[in-house]
């Protein structure tokens, strides 16, 4: 299973990446896309929505089932991946390229703590 070392992982199968501009990019893991099967719809949050870490923030629907996606960090949704929403199968093709949404942290210190509380690639891989 593909779990890039530069990302942090939630036990609920989201990945998160702190970018240079201070925002956090979030998607689902390769394991999650494989378990869901053919993805046909992404229900992404409204830009401007404020979420807390652990909040339901998006829904990924495969032919089989709908799966809630939780934000691993607290902040404001500043961008969603409309390209992926228009071609949901891109999440199956590359779950790390087809990100879902980006969060601007409410507080950078809190965000660091939230990210530190996530799993690294090895620890996430061990849960699978």
């Amino acid at each position: 299973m593909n779990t890039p070392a530069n990302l942090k992982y939630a036990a609920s199968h989201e990945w998160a990446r702190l970018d240079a501009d201070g925002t956090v990019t979030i998607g689902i893991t390769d394991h999650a896309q494989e378990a869901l099967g053919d993805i046909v719809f992404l229900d992404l949050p409204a830009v401007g929505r404020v979420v807390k870490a652990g909040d339901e923030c998006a829904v990924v629907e495969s032919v089989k089932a709908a799966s809630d996606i939780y934000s691993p960090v607290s902040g404001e949704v500043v961008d969603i991946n409309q390209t992926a929403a228009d071609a949901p199968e891109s999440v199956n093709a590359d779950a790390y390229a087809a990100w879902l949404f980006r969060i601007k942290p409410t507080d950078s210190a809190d965000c660091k703590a939230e990210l530190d509380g996530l799993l690294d690639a090895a620890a996430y891989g061990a849960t699978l």
Partner: protein
Amino acid sequence: MPLHTPLYDSHLAAGARMVDFSGWEMPIHYGSQIEEHHAVRRDAGMFDVSHMCALDLAGPDARGWLRRLLANDVAKLTTPGKALYSCLLNEAGGIIDDLIVYFFTAEHYRIVVNAGTAEKDIAWMQAQLAGFKAQLTQRRSGANALAMIAVQGPNARERFWTAFPASRAATEALGVFQAAEWRLPLSPVASPAAERGENWLIARTGYTGEDGFEITLPATDAAQTWRKLLDAGIKPCGLGARDTLRLEAGMNLYGQDMDEDISPYEAGLKWTVDLKDVARDFIGKSALAGKDARQVRNQFAGLLLLDRGVLRAHQKVITQQGAGEITSGTFSPSLNQSIALARLPVDVRIGNEVEVEIRDKRLRARVVKPSFVRNGQSLL
């Protein structure tokens, strides 16, 4: 301990993702459910349906007993191999199961029931056999166990004949819902079952809305048959594709679109209740006749989602005539939009626009006839 069909090892070898289905460990897909779906609509796919339960019925009262047991009338079966779809009703007119019955003679039939309901069905049938001279024998397990493989798609029969050329003469003229018995030649394929004189039953039936065969064969022939069908270019398909295909075809799934609290009239299956012979008293008949108020309250219809999203079972449907409920919903790979089967208030009309509650949103859907795709073509 999960149950396994005779093709379990074949599925693992083909890279299947296995899931539990009514206690059976079955393939959900072998990589991509959508590709498997398209293979059946455009070419040929095959499904292991050995978890379904074949029952042999034999005895001088076989015909009379089935005319009492089933809501559809086996009296209309007069050609050997002819098949009939029917509901098995309880006394209240609720659906215990849906099944296919094959006629061989008035004293010999084969019945195929659903996997998850087989034990319940057999217990019910055995109880109803009291006083009738007929025996019921299950063929899903034991020394004489049968396997079932469905090959479906526009090229399914041709590919099947490529794999088994000697079967062509016996099966080429089969009409829809007609089956023929056939014996695997002893050479070049070694078959202990054929050596014992056991036949296959090749039926022009299916659960996908496409042409094809459902083949019932001795379990000992299953793995080598699957291999030959693979070699003939038939794509293995899992239960995932089976569900999207049957939903597009508008075919009910027992336990989802109907159950013991639902009558055939509320499940779009009135056409399977045969009332022509007024002298025939089948189980559930009087309850159906007395249930007019309930019959007319709900209708079975299709929904086509107009907004983006995916319809799912148990979502609430809001109409101007009252609330309804989705019984099966999915994303339709053939139509590239979401479809559903639903029970709606009877005054809702085909073409009406309704709303479906999905999480915190209400999405628009159009009411359509409960049949979306047949023989590769959209019916919308």
